[in-house]
């Protein structure tokens, strides 16, 4: 059976997720530190068991140290706790080029709250494009859409389609009176008129909702699976790992 010091180091390395050779070097370095600390505390008058516990306490949380030992911005970072950072980042919070998580920030983001250039999620904030329950951004297609070009259940934007739709130019419905549009088809400026195909494309996304939704759900399931697998990997070594 492993002693508490080795189990602590196991824990650090599980969170650090390093290749074997590198992990062994980290283990040797941290172990040397801890053993030296224990020796010094024993010299100071503590019993060896108490000294070991005190050394571990002063060394800090294995989770914090382990995660900090990961590369600064790896290709893939999957975490069951904290913020994942990487080109592909998956975690409760994720920051990356492709970020997926409860809170996702990056270029292409997917999550409960997602913020990025192209965002998809419950609450999507997209500089270029947003799709989700509530969307805000450049081109938005969402249950409630707020943007430059907005299409959705309730749309607010420079160019908007929705029910109700509100904006500078609302191409559909303005004549029926269920939309608030500054311009009518008679006086709409050519620039706004020329943007209509983009708006139609955004509307199409909502039309193809039936097809998009399974894809959305599939991504969500894949995300949950990856998070579950990471959590399982962390717990696999020892039940003792679950706490703290």
């Amino acid at each position, binding site marked *: 059976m492993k002693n508490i010091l080795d189990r602590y180091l196991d824990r650090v390395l599980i969170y650090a997720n390093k290749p074997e050779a590198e992990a062994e070097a980290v283990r040797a*370095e941290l172990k040397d530190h801890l053993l030296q600390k224990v020796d010094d505390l024993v010299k100071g008058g503590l019993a060896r068991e108490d000294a070991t516990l005190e050394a571990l306490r002063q060394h*800090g949380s294995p989770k914090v140290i382990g995660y*900090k*030992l990961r590369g600064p911005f790896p290709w893939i970072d999957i975490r069951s706790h904290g913020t994942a950072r990487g080109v592909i980042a998956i975690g409760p919070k994720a920051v990356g080029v492709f970020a997926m998580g409860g809170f996702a920030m990056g270029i292409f983001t997917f999550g409960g709250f997602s913020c990025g250039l192209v965002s998809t999620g419950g609450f999507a904030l997209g500089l270029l494009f947003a799709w989700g329950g509530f969307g805000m951004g450049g081109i938005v297609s969402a249950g409630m859409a707020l943007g430059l070009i907005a299409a959705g259940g309730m749309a607010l934007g420079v160019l908007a389609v929705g029910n109700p739709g509100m904006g500078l130019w609302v191409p559909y419905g303005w004549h029926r009176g269920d939309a608030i549009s500054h311009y009518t088809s008679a006086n709409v400026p050519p620039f706004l008129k020329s943007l209509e195909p983009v708006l139609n494309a955004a509307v199409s996304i909502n039309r193809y909702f039936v097809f998009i939704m399974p894809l959305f759900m599939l991504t969500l399931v894949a995300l949950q699976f990856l998070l579950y697998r990471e959590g399982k990997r962390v717990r696999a070594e020892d039940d003792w790992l679950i706490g703290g």
Partner: protein
Amino acid sequence: MKLSKKTLDGNMDTLLLAVLSDGPSYGYQMVQDLNAKAPGVLKTGEGTIYPVLHRLEERELIQSSWRTGETGRQRRYYRITLKGKKALADNRLQWAALTKVMGTVLGGMPAPETLRTTTCHGATP
């Protein structure tokens, strides 16, 4: 006055480079040196210096080598590189300038004359 974790985290690189500028050292010894000079600076845990050390090594600001310590165990020693010394000198200048700006704007800080002396002294690598 307690320093916040955020402030400490952001400046741990500089603190460790400063410790290593006195000569090669290993993790535990560096912790002892830091605690002697600034007690409580490693309040998030002594082990948190290792991710910083590894990051500094990746950036080639420090180098490491394994040697047998006095305990007979293999021990990883770190030493500052030329690039690291330059970075430390830059950081010292930045800190002196920042302290001066904050002192001037916020008031109640050491007089600019005192800081100028500190800046010149601190700038010497």
